[in-house]
């Protein structure tokens, strides 16, 4: 579930507050948003790819929180890693035309 909003990366655009389907964040004036309802997070990773600053980190454990530091996420180059895998950049969509899933489906038969 959502674990980290990096205050050093966050540009306070509040896009995550708007787009989170589970309403996990609350906006705070003149500051980064806060994770207000962590347990509602559905671990869909969508906030990460919508974030124009790669400031969010969703940990892989969906059943509850786990402890990971911003320093570790930074050091392992995990901020924005899912967006890069998709071909999204700075919160902008892209990359569907390069999706090789049709090859997987042929192989799966």
């Amino acid at each position, binding site marked *: 579930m959502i674990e980290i909003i990096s205050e050093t990366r966050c540009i306070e655009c509040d896009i995550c507050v708007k787009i989170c389907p589970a309403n996990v964040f609350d906006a*705070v*004036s003149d500051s980064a948003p806060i994770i207000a309802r962590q347990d509602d997070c559905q671990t869909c990773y969508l906030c990460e790819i919508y974030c124009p600053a790669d400031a969010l980190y969703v940990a*892989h*454990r*969906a059943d509850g929180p786990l402890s990971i530091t911003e320093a570790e996420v930074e050091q392992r180059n995990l901020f924005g890693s899912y967006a890069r895998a998709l071909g999204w950049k700075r919160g902008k969509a892209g990359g569907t035309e390069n999706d090789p899933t049709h*090859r997987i489906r042929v192989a799966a038969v």
Partner: protein
Amino acid sequence: MSPNLVKSASSDPLQLQADVLVLGGGPSGAWAALAAAEDGARVILADKGYLGTSGATAPSNTGTWCVPPGENRGQAVERRWQRTGGLADQRWMLRCVDQAYDNLLKLSEWGYLFPHEDDGQLYIANLRGPDYMRFMRRRVLKAGVTVLDHHPALELLSDGDAVTGASGVDRQRNRNWSVEAKAVVLATGGCAFHERILGATGLTGDGYLMAAEAGANLSGMEFTGKYTLAPFETSLNKGLPYRWATFYREDGSPLLDANGDQVSNGIGEREKDIAKALIEGPVYARLDQAESALQDWLRRGQPNCFVPHDRAGIDPFKDLFRITLRAEGTVRGTGGIMLATSDCGTGVPGLYVAGDAASRENMTGAVSGGGAVNSSWAIASGWWSGKGAATHSRKSARKAFRSVSKPLGEAGLRPSGNARRDLRSADIIDAVRAEVIPLEKNYFRQGTTLQTSGERLENLWQDVRQHLYADGPERVRSREAASIAASARWSVASALARDESRGMHRRLDRPGNDLSFARRIIVGGVDNLSISRSEPGREGIAS
């Protein structure tokens, strides 16, 4: 809470009018809104979350059931029908593949970038969830639809004859909303019983309860036995990579089937062996059947499947990783609101249904439609329901909006007895989950176990109905708890009525099909349930 949280102080309710109100912002809701707007209807779409990220599709990458026009079309449908446990309806299947194909081409014309195959042909049989739903949002806004994000619906409104709108709460501004509409489309998705799977936060069966309160029936609710493999404790309920997996016990020894062969390919018949092993203890997997080209396609084509592994520091092609089977309720099950007409009407005047909120038995019978069939169904049923609702709104155009609309919501909003503040929504959901999530109760079913679950859920329902109460935005949670409890109760009652095994309804005490059960199980009612079987040969309504 910190005092500088950005919250509107306004508590004035939002009151709007529309020709068509669409509840839900997944693919079926988006297509419904587009279809109704194309017919000139004034459309409002209200979503619990955000149109673009809500629902089971947005976080995923889904195939479509894509059957091009031509001579092979009938055969493709016939072949698929053979796998549906005899409960699907070929007329609906044919019209669905045709409508979905048309709409997939529309997506391409509108500028959604599909990949190309090696021969240069566009490949339209796959949609990447985040991109697809973001694209649909833009399209819906461009069509002039009013979109209300973070506006969960709590209940339908009725004038006694027809559904006349819905009301709910704007959860980010803490104010009530209501929309008077000439027709309402329920595109609220299925019920995942609060399992932590992709998209499931919002998929709590709200539409089922709202529809039942309005007098609609449900069908196929026993088909909630679909589970999908996921890395342990993660949300990634995507089975495709396990096509190339082998499976192991906790001591590292290979998982063997009844013939002593090692279990591999976890998305076919071997799934039952994995389910049995998971009841006995932890199970591990490794994607070691995928050669290197395939590894690359999997990583680039299904990147979210690898996010949990990368973050856990695991190479799933080389390392063993612990797995689980995640329950998927009616999301990849097939049950839902019964369709009464070809335009996805529910039989209640003014109320239409689309996507996973509707029963998908017409399409896929007793087996899961997986991502692909459900995806095409969302496109087609969304389209038909939007057209149906727009047509209905024109017919009732001469009727002025009536002031006699009454709210229909009961459980979780208006308790029949004393409100009990100690009755918590989260506890109710936990109690429901104890009956409908464990593999030993819901994957492998038995009459005695179902009977016990049914009694527990009945008692729980009495508590919910008589005592569950909340106010303000907390009503969203109390209604979700009520909807989850109602969905489980319908599911177990229907499973008891299907005294045989068929598709994902696996009764250990009744192995094998019984020809007399090649019919739909229909359940109606909220407090007092009525169960019936469809007439033979009348499975597909209006066929």
